[in-house]
């Protein structure tokens, strides 16, 4: 890697490259892992910089917007593992989740106690708190009119709830 950069930039020594790389790492353009391998840093992606303004005064807004994200990025983490469901009933109403709400969930996450999860119960999806006390695992509703669910056999947690969306 270092010798490639050396020939690429016409440097005479690897030490010069090492210094350059050090600067780039400091500025966040490159990342260096614990084995010293390099990977691209934050310049990847669609970050706009001031230099691209074509006419008129450079707008300070452009620069500020570089640090903003879209609703999509805000709500969705791992895009390929993300799904949506519609909530039925009010078993989670004390958690602020009510009938008709959209929940954004992610598969492939190991749930921690206290997470709101989507579990498979009797061939249906159910949305509940995931609770773990010692060796006991159960699903807890957020509504005192409902009973906690203690699984008889294996409990299938399919996804973890990451966000709730309600449009008025």
């Amino acid at each position, binding site marked *: 890697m270092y010798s490639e950069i050396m020939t690429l930039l016409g440097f005479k020594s690897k030490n010069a490259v090492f210094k350059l790389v050090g600067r780039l790492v400091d500025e966040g353009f490159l990342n260096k892992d614990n084995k010293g391998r390099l990977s691209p840093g934050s310049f990847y992606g669609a970050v706009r910089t001031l230099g691209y303004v074509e006419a008129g005064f450079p707008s300070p807004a452009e620069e500020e917007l570089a640090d903003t994200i879209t609703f999509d990025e805000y709500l969705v983490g791992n895009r390929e593992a993300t799904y*949506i469901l519609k*909530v*039925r009933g009010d078993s989670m109403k004390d958690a602020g989740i009510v009938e008709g709400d959209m929940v954004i*969930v992610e598969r492939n996450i190991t749930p921690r106690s206290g997470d709101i999860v989507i579990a*498979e119960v009797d061939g249906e*999806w159910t949305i509940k708190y995931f609770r773990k006390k010692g060796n006991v695992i159960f699903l807890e509703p957020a509504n005192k009119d409902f009973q906690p669910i203690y699984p008889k056999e294996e409990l*299938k947690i*399919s996804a973890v709830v990451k966000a709730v969306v309600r449009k008025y």
Partner: protein
Amino acid sequence: MLKLFDFPRAILHIDGDCFFASCEVAKNPSLRGKPVITGSERGIVSSLTYEAKARGVKRAMSLWEVKKICPDAVFLPSDYETYSLFSVRMYEIVRRYTSDVEEYSIDECFADLTGLQRPLNMSYEKIAESIKRDLDTELGMTFSIGLAPTKVLAKIGSKWKKPSGLTIMPGRNLHYFLEKLSVDKVWGIGPQTTAYLNKLGVRSALDFAQKDFDWVKSCLSKPYLEIWKELNGEVVNEVDTARKSLYQSISKTKTFTPQSSDKAFILSQLSKNVENAFIKARRYKLAAKKFFFFLKTQDFQYAGLEIKMNRQTASPNDIISLIANRFDEIFNPRQLYRATGIILTDLAEHKPSQLDIFGEVLKSDKYFKIFGSVDDMAARYGKHTLFLGTSWQAMNFRQHQGGREAKADRKSVLFKGETIRKRLAIPMLGEAW
């Protein structure tokens, strides 16, 4: 015995297990373990779960046949929107590991892992395992994967153990797989060639792979020479990473029920298909110079006509007027029809053409601009916001009247702000209580 390094190249073939049916089960846990069949809107089995396979159901079987042998089968209408969303996710997950991914079909892809052990700090086997784990857990269904030195071999690998198989085929073990595989199971070798090869004493894939170069060259044509090379571990077909952009032909067919012998109605069905075919053509900036249109009768007979034009076009009305002029040549008013279809061929990149004396080209270019706006409207307000008058009857007709009209779930369970035409690009798993 074939002599080869283990992985001079490392090619992966990934195949979704009964993909459409699996997408349905991934969405709806009550279907797990049941014989599930998709394709009810067409009246035939399009995809089926292993539970249905075990009961003797096969692809392309008619639904009433299925009902006889498997009365508890669950029939579902195809939900191509969801299948496409899952399909894109499959490609994207594989792209986390390598940019060399070939989107081979909606439920299959190839990936080239050559040289990635060091950057990913994993052996090829481990990379394949890791891809499979991501796919299985994030998509909620299983995939079968073959890892081998070439595409032809990788494809053998992904079929070797199904469902949910991961078959590693290093060069030194190839003979073990090939000797057990009948030669007709090799990708690209059809029944005719199989019969011919059998006559020459070639029965297993290994028999074929062990023939020498000159023998293959004198007995078979070039495509089979390529297969032979790939069976011997030499890459001939590279993983083609160009996203699907060039089609050799574009076809659109739609069945309607009840069947009809109403000329105007059938013509409007055809017109709708032509519009849809060109929507796709324009998306890939393609224009057609030749097309074939056909009608399918009640008893599954086809009547069709091929028309070659003197210049390429990307506008449906050019073709519809040609069809209208010659429609009577294939249409019989005493016949009942069940489907219409259009195939655009001789596709090439759409480019402004030379002017002609009659100004036809100018007119056509003008239409092209108009359809550009039609596409913009569709992007903003949904497909078919604007359509041709000739398609009116078909656009205002539910494609299947009566019992067959089955709408996929996704189009009936909507969130506030979603419409029948526009929905969030995230798979919907249904309701949770």
